């Protein structure tokens, strides 16, 4: 088992929601917890926390990613764990009728979702793995995907991005163990986070809850605990762990 005390753990999108919960649980394990996120009031508030290292980094911008990873390695000497958690939920059908006409999935939204949910993890992992190799750290890469990766109606971009991330998980699980790095993914179902309530309309959400055998949304603490357990478990590699209250069985 990997002892997290003193290990440098980097969580993207760690300033809110699931990412912040993962950070809190890593802190409980006495890990050095580092956040990459973009400017927001919540982000600014976290900068006052003495127990966190918070870096401003838009993970869709490879140059920023490279510079920020460099700053982390300079500051802390190494990176042991990377959690690719940044993600935006976006729902739109490919084609829909409404407002008196035919509406097509916006391509710029497609680009935005792919870039935030998929390309970001590619940039982050590339540079983090490089840092792990130079410092010869045995590392762990975690990708936060979603059960939508199975293909959710109305979520072309999101499902594709998350499926892409699951594919990367498997690729890296095969490529990276020679360097002492393993990789796995956690695919949450619907969680009780602000972003869920903002992105999913309340009736759809209530319908979804009815379809969950456990009849409730997941808690971020439950998902985060699962992520941390996976990070600690040295035999976990290449798998996508779904945690969704039994929504997809």
């Amino acid at each position, binding site marked *: 088992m990997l002892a997290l005390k003193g290990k440098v753990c980097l969580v993207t999108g760690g300033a809110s929601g699931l990412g912040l919960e993962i950070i809190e649980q890593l*802190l409980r394990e006495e890990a050095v917890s580092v956040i990459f996120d973009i400017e927001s*009031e919540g982000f*600014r*508030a976290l900068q006052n*926390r*003495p127990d966190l*290292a918070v870096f401003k980094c838009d993970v869709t911008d490879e140059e920023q990613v490279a510079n920020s990873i460099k700053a982390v390695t300079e500051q802390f000497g190494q990176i042991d764990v990377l959690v690719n958690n940044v993600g935006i939920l976006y729902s739109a059908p490919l084609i829909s009728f409404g407002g008196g006409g035919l509406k097509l999935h916006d391509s710029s939204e497609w680009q935005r979702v792919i870039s935030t949910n998929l390309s970001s993890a590619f940039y982050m992992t590339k540079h983090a793995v490089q840092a792990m190799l130079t410092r010869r750290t045995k590392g762990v890469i975690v990708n936060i995907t979603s059960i939508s990766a199975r293909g959710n109606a109305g979520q072309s971009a999101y499902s594709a991005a998350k499926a892409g991330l699951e594919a990367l998980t498997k690729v890296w699980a095969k490529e990276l163990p020679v360097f002492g790095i393993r990789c796995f993914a956690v695919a949450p179902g619907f969680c009780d986070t602000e972003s869920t309530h903002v992105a999913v309309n309340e009736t759809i959400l209530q319908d979804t809850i009815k379809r969950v055998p456990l009849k409730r949304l997941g*808690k971020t603490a439950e998902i985060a605990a699962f992520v941390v357990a996976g990070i600690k478990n040295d035999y976990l590699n290449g798998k996508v762990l779904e945690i969704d209250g039994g929504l997809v069985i």
Partner: protein
Amino acid sequence: MSNNQYLFNLGSRFKSVASQKSDSVAVLFEEQKLTYSELDRQSDAMATYFIQSGLKVGDLVCISGTKNITAVICILGALKAGVTYSVFDPESPQPRLLKIFDRCNPALVLCENQLTVSIPSDKFKVADYTKLQLPANEDDNAAVVSNHLKSITAATAAYVMFTSGSTGFPKGATMTHQNVLNLIDWSIQTYGIGAGEVFTSVNPFFFDNSVFDLYSSLFSGSTIALFDGQAVRDSRKLLRLIDEFKCTSWFSVPSMLIYLQTMRALNADSFSSLKRIIFGGEGYPKARLVELFDLLSHRISFYNVYGPTECTCICSSYKVESNDFADLKGFLPLGKLAPNFSGWIVDEALQIVPDGQQGELLLGGPNVGMGYYRDHERTNLAFVQNPTHSAYRDMAYRTGDVVLHNPDDDKIRIMGRADNQIKHMGYRIELEEIENALSCIESVAQTAVIHCELRGISQIVAFVKLKSDTEEDEIRKVLKGLLPAYMIPTKFSFVQYLQKNANGKLDRKQLKSDYLGQRVNG
């Protein structure tokens, strides 16, 4: 130091120090350096400006600006003119600032950049302190000041320090020249402050820990090295400068040291000239402190200090020893009260409790301040007669801290609070002030704010019941306009209903234990 002169106010005391140390460095800031004689001359000019502008002994001057040498000159000038100063966070929300100004009616507001503070000049006399036309004739200034110093007594108020208040209005703890003179002498003796000392000033001047930095250094002939907010956040640069400036004494809240630890900025070679690390304002989780202690205690002494703003910010100093880490749970004890302080542990009726029982700590003696500025009501609640006699007027301050004296080891330990005041990053905050601010937000139906410690790190959690959909960031934005940054909750939890207790009041205790329970089990 006093040359047998009767130095009964801070201005005279400073002049005496400055005359003996005229060529020594008084202040360091970035690339700037000021000797005692320069600081004396420049603060004479500032004092003369105050006097010639018609400010009288006891008038209030509010200073709002970032930390720099000019701010130090303003403070010393005010002391020499017998004008009471109060420093404000330039980033503090304007409505809160104006509410305070309205209450305390300053004779002059000095700020660094009028635009950023935009104080209404029809209501207050405002000046940009970086652009003041100060009287230039040094001999005249010195003469004006030395004549004026005679009219400042030890009972003149030196400064007013504002802290959060439960009604949503901050309280201005008012301290006299005598209070501060006592602090200075105590500090010189307790820490054996001698030649060549350089004090760090990492605390902002609007924060009460800065009182120690400023007075222990400039009134003992030592150097003060100023670090502004930006410098403090850049941990590596900060440590480099501290070594370059050959700082010998560090004082901060534990949070700041924990941040340096978190950033892995400290190693066995850090703080190369430091003799002592003093921390206070909040508890230092022993589990974190021991790491620092193990790293540096062979050449640096560690002190845990405690004290309320109303009593010059320090009333006890406890030297940390290795056997304090026999167990790593919780926080250090406070140790004994400093000499010239009396302390009693009392119950709600202000009766002294039997030794070994917990109760509220009352502080008495000549370091107890004058109460809250222009606020008789709250002064009367917090400042009470010495519980041991009624022979004459002898005021004691109710700290609100619930403490326990252990007769076996003769140590006092903090057990909690008698009210809803908390310490967050060393700042005193009344949770009700945050609740008041939240209630001003249109979409908030009801709210309860709690404080807890997770792994020893302080967190403010706001439970909010919304009337209409609003995003957390939106709420944070509105709060930013109402509260200083350190009062904005660390976490928001949006709930459908808020737990009440049997009396129909918000059940903070229950909310807190549910919240912590979730954290631990989740």
